[in-house]
């Protein structure tokens, strides 16, 4: 009989896969060692240890394009230019880890008829933004208030046949998809395939396959760039997968901010039932990606539970229980949830800290939360970091940046379990401030 694998063992296996140099190429054994040392450094802080120095990441969005002198539109449509921009950025700044950028497959979104976002250079007239603007989400009620029962009865069915046709206009034909249970009896199959052969359904599948192909072209470039950053400089990537808080799945992209907040008054039981139904999906989404990329970190941006958005009572009732369940599910599967806590969370720290999450299994990146309070509530059980203001990257001076980073590390970063990061994605920055940030990290972040 096979011994049961514990969640710790699963996590260790994912860390080992991330750290492994097997099947990865490096220009020299020294660079391979640098790579492993950087992975170890992040693993150490996740497990609340004190590494050789504070791991430092850069959340750069639009700045990568700006710095290289290409437009946001080219970042989504000219893959070779985008690749050169990303390589140049890393070559010039030499961050320890691969920094995010706005490099995304515009043509694939066009082919899907994706209307949930607007982005520079889109071929869909209603979604097109000028090349100088970064992509932005369009808030709307993509799910109606009277559709809760349908969502709760079968979220995947609702997603495939109602939600996706609304946000991907080219996949509209999926509304007509007959149930795949029809495959259970051979004589049923001609009917099932026959309905699937209706022109709108065929067109939807065709659009889907073409989008898959367009995305593969992007994926090839993206993979090549990432491999080169690893091989040349020993820079590890820091994200293995993505997921979201169930309340945000409902609030951000199904009902919209206004919709979900009215629902909290009008049909609270349905809101609660919906977020519970979405929880296993949130877990599965993160775990699948982490397993595919063999990287333990699952990024979860948090939106509508922040201070100011809802009361502590509502946070405890609507937001936190299913987020906690999502985190526990991800941890159980061996992943390390990497929470990107946007806005302020000062009124939430105690609730989270006292909820009994296991120690050394999560990462918390804070934005405007008081970092001393974070240290007090999280220091003993969770890795944390963040808080360097985006405004400082753009409107500050190198001296101000150095002072901020020094103070932050001195105040909350002395005992390990801490990483340095901007509090939000930096779309715009002065290059000298980015340099000052990285230099200050090296100057003040080395543990003696």
């Amino acid at each position: 009989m096979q011994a049961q694998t514990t969640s710790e063992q699963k996590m260790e296996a994912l860390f080992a896969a991330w750290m492994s140099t097997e099947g990865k190429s490096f220009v020299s054994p020294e660079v391979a060692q640098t790579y492993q040392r950087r992975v170890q450094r992040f693993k150490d802080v996740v497990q609340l240890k004190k590494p050789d120095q504070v791991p430092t990441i850069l959340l750069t969005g639009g700045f990568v394009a700006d710095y290289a002198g290409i437009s946001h539109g080219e970042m989504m449509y000219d893959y070779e230019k985008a690749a050169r921009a990303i390589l140049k950025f890393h070559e010039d700044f030499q961050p320890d880890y691969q920094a995010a950028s706005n490099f995304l497959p515009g043509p694939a979104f066009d082919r899907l008829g994706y209307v949930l976002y607007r982005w520079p250079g889109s071929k869909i007239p209603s979604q097109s933004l000028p090349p100088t603007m970064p992509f932005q989400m369009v808030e709307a009620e993509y799910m109606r208030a009277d559709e809760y029962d349908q969502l709760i009865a079968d979220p995947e069915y609702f997603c495939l046949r109602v939600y996706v046709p609304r946000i991907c206009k080219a996949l509209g034909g999926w509304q007509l998809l007959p149930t795949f249970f029809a495959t259970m009896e051979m004589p049923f199959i001609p009917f099932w395939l026959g309905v699937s052969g209706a022109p709108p359904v065929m067109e939807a599948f065709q659009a889907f396959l073409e989008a898959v192909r367009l995305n593969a072209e992007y994926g090839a470039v993206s993979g090549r760039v990432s491999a080169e950053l690893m091989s040349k400089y020993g820079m590890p990537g820091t994200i293995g997968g993505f997921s979201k808080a169930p309340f945000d799945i409902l609030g951000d992209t199904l009902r919209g901010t206004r919709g979900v907040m009215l629902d909290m008054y009008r049909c609270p039981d349905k809101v609660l039932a919906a977020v519970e139904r979405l929880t296993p999906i949130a877990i599965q989404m993160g775990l699948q990606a982490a397993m595919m990329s063999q990287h333990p970190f699952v990024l979860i941006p948090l939106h509508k539970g922040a201070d100011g958005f809802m009361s502590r009572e509502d946070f405890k009732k609507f937001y936190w229980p299913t987020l906690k369940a999502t985190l526990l599910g991800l941890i159980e599967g061996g992943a390390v949830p990497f929470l990107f806590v946007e806005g302020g969370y000062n009124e939430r720290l105690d609730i989270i800290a006292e909820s009994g999450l296991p120690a050394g299994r999560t990462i918390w990146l804070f934005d405007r939360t008081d970092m001393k309070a974070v240290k007090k509530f999280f220091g003993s059980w969770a890795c944390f970091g963040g808080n360097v203001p985006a405004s400082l990257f753009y409107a500050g001076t190198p001296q101000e940046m150095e002072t901020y980073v020094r103070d932050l590390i001195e105040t909350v970063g002395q005992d390990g379990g801490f990483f340095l990061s901007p509090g939000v994605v930096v779309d715009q920055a002065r290059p000298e401030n980015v340099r000052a940030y990285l230099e200050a990290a090296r100057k003040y972040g080395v543990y003696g």
Partner: protein
Amino acid sequence: MSLKNSLVHAIAEMQEEEAIRLTRAMVDSGASPMEVLDAAREAMDIVGQRYEKGIYFLPELMMAGEILSQMAEIVKPLLAQAPAVKKHGRVLIGTVAGDIHDIGKNIVVFMLDVNGFEVMDLGVDVPPQKFVEAVKEFKPQVVGLSGFLTLAFDSMKETIKALEVAGLRNQVKVMIGGGSVDEHVRAYTGADAWGRDAMAAVNLAKQWIGG
């Protein structure tokens, strides 16, 4: 409790159906539309105070807005003959060029409106020149610039610069807010003040205009 007091209570306590029922009852009993709207204002004072104290949050502002717009639908037919309400002053507002976020801005517009300011909302992705034209026509005392993206910092700065070039800068106070706006951003853009939430905007407008 009078019908009006019950209505104030129902709105302030987020009892949507009860508030609508009471609005109809007031109208049916011959109350003037002004009395109904007075109740709405009184209730919104309570909601605003609770929001400021951290008792109420966005769901309550959204719900109050929803109740008020349903009430407005009910009294609208009767409003034609009613005298116009005197407003405290005018606030021009918009999300700056390049940014299409509007949730935060819409809440600010709503809170300014229910606090007795005349608000002109230019929408999202508003170019500097459009702000300039609107300042000339609408003659606001306060201009509110909203933006969620860091990209908005520059648009805010350019908008304020455009007001300056047009010779309008000293006629208005400029407040900014949204996303990662803070004191650094205020100094960078040349705005007069920045605020973290809708009540901060209301308080700035009150401080500058009165009311």
